[in-house]
């Protein structure tokens, strides 16, 4: 089955544990006179998590769209998985996107397809044998606990179920990077916890690097400070130790720039008035 792109052993080694998997170098973007991003630079390490916080319109979702190549920056350089994406044609980007999964706000499921067809969409498009596709769809829907909804249409699902199917669709082809755009916004706390747990499980059990855009602080802290463990007692979500918690980094955007960059503890202890107002 054609999952994420094959790479040379040299590149694989260079992109091994501890190596950068997404790099933004002085990236700027404006829509007419409205500057959305100004000189944004950050690095996501393989297997780690970046959580973008900020008010509505602060450019959080724009960063995800730049990573996937849905938008082009006015200036600056973007590297994803060892490939530069800011100057590629749409055809080149299609190849790079095989290693990227994105969960859109509200899920963006295809209305005319069933849950199974949505989840298996990319594998079917790539021409994978039907049997293998449906086996993978079963596996992924089982992972997120929605096996019984396999033949439903998206319109028949609740908001939380739609987001979880969107996560299943994004992980079906085993990308190495997953991008979440407001995956828990508008969900009740219990459903949001379920979605958070899926994100944690994918990061810790499937070793997927994650970039999360949200303004739900509760969910952001939960993802940053918990980890998934699979041992004799089964699969559990438990508080992360200090070293694991430091693998998740917060970036607060304000007026197109980075206002704060640090770990959960540093964010909690910050005396910055803007951060305090956001946290309160």
């Amino acid at each position, binding site marked *: 089955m054609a999952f994420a792109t094959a790479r040379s052993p040299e590149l694989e080694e260079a992109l091994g544990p501890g190596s950068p998997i997404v790099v933004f170098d002085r990236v700027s973007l404006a829509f007419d006179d409205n500057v959305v991003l100004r000189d944004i630079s950050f690095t996501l390490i393989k297997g780690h998590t970046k959580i973008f916080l900020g008010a509505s319109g602060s450019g959080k979702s724009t960063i995800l*769209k730049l990573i996937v190549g*849905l938008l082009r920056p006015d200036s600056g350089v973007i590297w994803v998985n060892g490939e530069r994406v800011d100057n590629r044609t749409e055809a080149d980007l*299609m190849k790079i996107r*095989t290693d990227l999964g994105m969960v859109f706000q*509200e899920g*963006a499921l295809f*209305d005319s397809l069933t849950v199974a067809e949505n989840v298996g969409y990319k594998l079917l498009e790539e021409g994978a044998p039907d049997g293998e596709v449906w086996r993978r769809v079963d596996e992924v829907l089982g992972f997120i606990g929605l096996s019984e909804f396999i033949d439903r249409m998206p319109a028949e699902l609740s908001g939380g179920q739609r987001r979880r199917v969107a996560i299943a669709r994004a992980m079906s082809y085993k990308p190495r990077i997953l991008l979440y755009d407001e995956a828990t916004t508008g969900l009740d706390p219990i459903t949001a916890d379920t979605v958070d747990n899926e994100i944690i499980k994918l990061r810790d059990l499937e070793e997927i690097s994650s970039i999360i855009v949200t303004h739900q602080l509760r969910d952001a802290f939960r993802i940053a400070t918990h980890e998934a463990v699979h041992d004799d007692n089964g699969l559990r979500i438990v508080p992360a130790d200090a070293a694991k918690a430091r693998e998740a980094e917060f970036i607060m955007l304000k007026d197109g720039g980075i206002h704060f960059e640090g770990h959960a503890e540093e964010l909690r202890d910050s005396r910055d008035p803007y951060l305090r107002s956001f946290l309160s």
Partner: protein
Amino acid sequence: MLKQVEQWVKAALLEVQEYVQLVGRVSGAVVTRPYYYRDIVLQFEAIGVGSLVVVSLTGFFTGAALALQTGQTLDRFGARTLVGQLVSASMIRELGPVLTALMLAGRVGSGMAAELGSMAVTDQINALRALGTDPLRKLVVPRVLASTVMAPVLTVIADTFAITAGWIISVTNLGVSTSTYWTQVQEGLYLGDAWQGLIKPVVLGLVIGTVGCHVGLSARGGTQGVGRATTNAVVVASVLVIAVDFFLTPLLMRVLY
């Protein structure tokens, strides 16, 4: 005021530029792989088979009304027997292509704009791109191909219904015999008319498909945006159908006759 006019002109030029770019990209995509055969077949069915009833009814009633009206006018010159000639020539050259295209603009153009517009405002188009699918090939090419190919087929069907309706009216209301009517239908037609009646709908179908897709993909601003896109698709496609027909007619007359 001057600034507003300037902005309007700029926006209009940008719209035209984006439309021309879309047409160019569709032309490129039609002759290169990959093709989404399943989507192409589905669109042929939705646009072609789905429009059969509306196009047949339009043709039938237009032909019937045309026979009634022209029968009276021709009476003044003692030429009622020429009604078959008038119905067939008017329908095949002009009314068939234009009315079928207007029906398609209303039924198909609006459908494309609404469907693609909903996908655009709910991020489904971006989701397609993020999943490595080119929306142009998956969504636009099948719709444009279907409207371009099916428009002439539907026009021929509309013409057939119109001429048949003209025959029924001629026999029942105007007292023209069946053999006279059909002889006049044949005598009134030249080979150029048939070509004109087939070439025009191809161009008009292309216009309807590309306008519907362009307007749909450009939709912004939630359900209101989708509503605006749907209305715009019908209005722009209908006006363009009539305008393109006006410019195409003398060109085809020069080439075909």
